[in-house]
């Protein structure tokens, strides 16, 4: 059984049919990436998984259980946490408080303190800024904070929405190295990226989304090699 199974998912925003038919399987332990151009429905797919939008058709199964209709805060408790698009850090809270909210659902305070320490050793820059308001961080630091915060929920499945968006190339390298490390320590990741090049490098499996439909899927290496993907998303003519 796949950890997450999105089957023929459909979402409407009012009259707009944002995604029509998206199917994605995420196996335990993998990094699966959704790639596609702007407006293909990548973010909407993630929002349907995390409970931010209600699907109008299809199924989302997590460990075999349907997620449709559950409120977002209950889905987090089932082991799915998300670093949302645009980072979504709470600018009016300190870095420490942001991290604390990542662990909001947990009661095991000693383990939270350990995980906090672990997250801060992955992102040493955040340690220096613990008492600072999150709004004063740079874009890269905010992205680090968003990922660290999502990790503090101790998710089985981590949803990352455009983690490289707006970051300097060096920072992008760093973030992707960390994504791989997080996965190697046992967390399954569903990664939404416009930077298909980087995404296909770290992912095991990839799904291509085009105007609200999943059109291609397969091992990331195969997709990276396919002419179609190279042409459309990797900038090779």
């Amino acid at each position: 059984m796949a950890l997450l199974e999105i089957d023929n998912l459909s979402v409407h925003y009012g009259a707009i049919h944002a995604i029509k038919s998206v199917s994605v399987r995420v196996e335990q332990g993998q990094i699966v990436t959704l790639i596609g151009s702007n407006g293909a429905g990548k973010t909407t797919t993630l929002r349907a998984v995390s409970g931010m939008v209600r699907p109008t058709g299809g199924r989302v199964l997590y460990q075999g259980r349907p997620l449709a209709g559950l409120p977002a805060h209950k889905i987090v408790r089932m082991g799915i946490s998300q670093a949302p698009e645009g980072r979504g850090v709470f600018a009016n809270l300190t870095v420490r408080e942001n991290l604390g909210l990542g662990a909001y659902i947990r009661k095991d305070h000693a383990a939270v303190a350990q995980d906090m320490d672990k997250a801060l050793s992955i992102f040493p820059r955040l340690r220096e800024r613990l008492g600072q308001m999150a709004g004063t961080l740079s874009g890269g630091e905010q992205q680090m904070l968003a990922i660290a915060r999502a990790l503090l929920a101790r998710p089985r499945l981590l949803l990352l929405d455009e983690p490289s968006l707006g970051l300097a190339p060096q920072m992008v390298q760093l973030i992707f190295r960390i994504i791989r490390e997080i996965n190697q320590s046992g967390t399954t990741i569903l990664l939404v990226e416009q930077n298909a090049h980087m995404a296909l490098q770290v992912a095991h499996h990839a799904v291509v989304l085009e105007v609200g439909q999943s059109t291609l899927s397969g091992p990331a290496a195969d997709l990276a090699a396919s002419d179609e993907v190279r042409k459309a998303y990797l900038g090779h003519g």
Partner: protein
Amino acid sequence: MGTLFDATFFDTMIASVAVGSLYALIALGYTMVYGILKFINFAHSDVFVLGAWTAFTTTTALIAWTGLSAAGAPWWLGPIVLGVAMVVCGVTAFCIERFAYRPLRKAPRLNVLITAIGVSLLLQNFNQLPPAPGLARTATVSFPFGPTPKTMPELLPDVILNESIIATGTLGGGERRGQVLLDRAVTVLPGRTYRLDVTRQTEAGPVVARFNLNNPPVGEVQAGTPLVTQPLRPPAEMQGLAYVLVQVPAVTIRLVDVAIVGTAAVLMVGLLWLVFRTRLGAAMRAVSFSIENAALMGVNVNFVISFTFVLGACLAAAAGFLYPIKYPSLQQPASDVWVLLGLKAFVAAVVGGIGNIRGAVLGGFLIAFIEFFGETYLSATIGSGLQDIYVFTTLILVLLLRPAGLLGTPVREKV
């Protein structure tokens, strides 16, 4: 007017701090709801009125049911009345949010605003309905509260905390009735009030009769000098009773004011602790920044919003409980007096920076200071009774010069 820091100044200061803490308590409810839902809960001031009238009804009911005398209420009556007012207001605010505002969570903000005004009118008029027959068992206990003004029974005795006893003794009788022979030498200061308290034991407990001294000789007064009381002389049956001679200070600190400021301070410090030092408080601030992202952290947003409404209502209930302790005449629930009070608390929240909790506290005190100091020091030159004009002028100036309020951060577009 004498020096700047004279008795008038300190009296004005005490009144400002006492009333300012009430404004601050109410302003906090406005600002917390705005911080989370970005709309003005116009029904909030009516929750405050509900708190005041619930406090009144609970007090009269407890006095009627327990057979206590209205004069000497025991100390534990206050906390019970406060608790009942908080529960009633908290439940009301929960229902308002749950049934009036939550269905409109995704509607345009104007719709919610209009609904808020509707809820405000509903509460105002409901509170003023004639008492339901089943609930009006006595003349004083009624719910709803009816359209007539009432007077709050004394929950706290009117005690001046910083007065001092300068002599004690027993009252003489006969020819010397109304005169007090000092048992020791005392120093009488000019311009002060001196009071004679005589305690008489009755079946209902000790009763204190108070007599002011009429023009006591200023300076050192020898033992055995007779002092004359005014306006009433102690009755003949008081002869032989113990008296204490009390010197009333120029600036009086009353138990009522200390109780108001103390209760408000405890509640405000508790609120700041809750919001800035606890996990739930962090969740509240997270929701106020982004409802969606807070939900992604596992925060139950509906719970946090309900909690915020109930919390704001409890503070308003506390203000409603404290207000009639200082100003015992309660106007009917739909009276302009209440509307104006609620409006000033709202102005306090805006002046401090709506959405900012520390700003609401600052604004509350600031508005009261402007109101009381303006009335005290400008009435001779500009005219009396203009305190509301000072308050609203302040609002206009702040909105012109610092539209986000004193502690508010200017709204910026999200990128």
